[in-house]
């Protein structure tokens, strides 16, 4: 390790050997994206219907808010290591922690999306003879879509970060570079891995921010 570790990390990133094969950057990035997508999707299948129900009916809101708050106190590394011991090395253990950590954002996004619709607008829809399902899908959801996408954004940011810790208990993904570098005292490689994860997280965050803007119905600038 000579010179600036940042220059060395750029050299590491520029080395074509790091861009091919099973441990290469493209494959690790895809792994990381795959974990993130899988975690967020499974969590969404569980949390979004519940959130929509809570937002539409107003029932169980206190529980949903408390759950979202309590989840913030949960240490992500604790969950990842706990499941690693309980379930063993493999994809199941990290996936379980991704799902648990993604649920609060998605739940909050879904119920606040539905809840954000003006009560007068919802009543007007009801007075026009819309069924509750139609009110949810044609009035409340389109109006609150940016908030729902915001929930996905929060969940994605959380899971991208946690997916890196998953490499600590034997999964792939970009976190590998950091933990390999830590083990072999290779600081430039750790920096390179960090830059890659940060870039991935920011790209995902900005993409979903854009999606949030685009899904706002014309005439409504809710968020």
């Amino acid at each position, binding site marked *: 390790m000579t010179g600036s570790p940042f220059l060395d990390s750029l050299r590491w990133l520029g080395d074509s050997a790091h861009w091919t094969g099973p441990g290469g950057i493209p494959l690790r990035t895809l792994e990381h994206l795959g974990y993130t997508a899988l975690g967020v999707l499974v969590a969404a299948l569980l949390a979004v219907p519940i959130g929509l129900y809570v937002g539409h009916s107003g029932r169980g809101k206190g529980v949903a808010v408390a759950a979202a708050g309590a989840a913030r106190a949960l240490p992500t590394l604790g969950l990842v290591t706990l499941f690693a011991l309980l379930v063993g090395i493999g994809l199941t253990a990290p996936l379980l922690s991704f799902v648990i950590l993604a649920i609060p954002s998605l739940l909050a996004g879904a119920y606040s999306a539905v809840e954000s619709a003006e009560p007068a607008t919802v009543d007007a829809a009801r007075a026009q003879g819309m069924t509750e399902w139609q009110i949810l899908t044609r009035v409340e959801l389109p109006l609150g879509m940016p908030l729902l996408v915001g929930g996905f954004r929060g969940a994605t940011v959380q899971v991208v970060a946690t997916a890196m810790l998953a490499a600590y208990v034997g999964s792939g993904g970009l976190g590998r570079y950091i933990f390999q570098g830590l083990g072999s005292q290779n600081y430039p490689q750790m920096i390179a891995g960090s830059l890659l994860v940060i870039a991935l*997280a920011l790209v995902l965050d900005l993409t979903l921010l854009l999606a949030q803007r685009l899904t706002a119905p014309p005439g409504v600038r809710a968020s």
Partner: protein
Amino acid sequence: MTWVLANLDVIAGYTGSHLLQALPPILVAFLLSLPLAKLANSRGWLRTSVTTTSSLMYAIPSLPLFVLLPGLIGTGVRSPLNIAVALSLYGLALMVPAAADAFRSVNREVLGSATAQGYAPRARFLQVELPLAGPVLLAGVRVVAVSTISLVTVGGVLGVPSLGMLFVDGVRRGILAEIAAGIVATVLLALLIDALLVMLGRAVMPWTRRQGARTP
């Protein structure tokens, strides 16, 4: 449970260093957020850029930031100072938008009345604006405190002593009770600090006691 009882001194030691890493960033984030939020509120374009910067900062995963910072500020990867600086940045990312909201929630007409009554700018800020923004500020600090206490544990994988070491050591040696103890201790610590903040809020803002902590 036997592991916990046999290692209470270890847990206590890690809890101590955990608090030492968590409390300064919470305080720094709170104190720095006040002038930054006032500044952000003073110009429309500043407010937008502060909101954008904060949300991007918050999107950066913690471990990579812990790894990058030593190269930028000259601390060691295993230095608690490094963790504290990173956590202050996250704290600011949460707290500055919250404080900007808090100051915006203060009724302009009340501030106008205070000026008319002869309050100088500094006195008006300290005696009128800050107390009225207090409940929303407190809500922000509570979020910062809980998330900071949880984030400190990530430093464990780099070998920085905190309750996170219980996860690292537990997974290495296959002791489930150790990991469970770490999770419980971290959550309890967060709840404890949160409760203390609520009590502190009631002590310094007695008018919030009747209606709960939100409406000024």
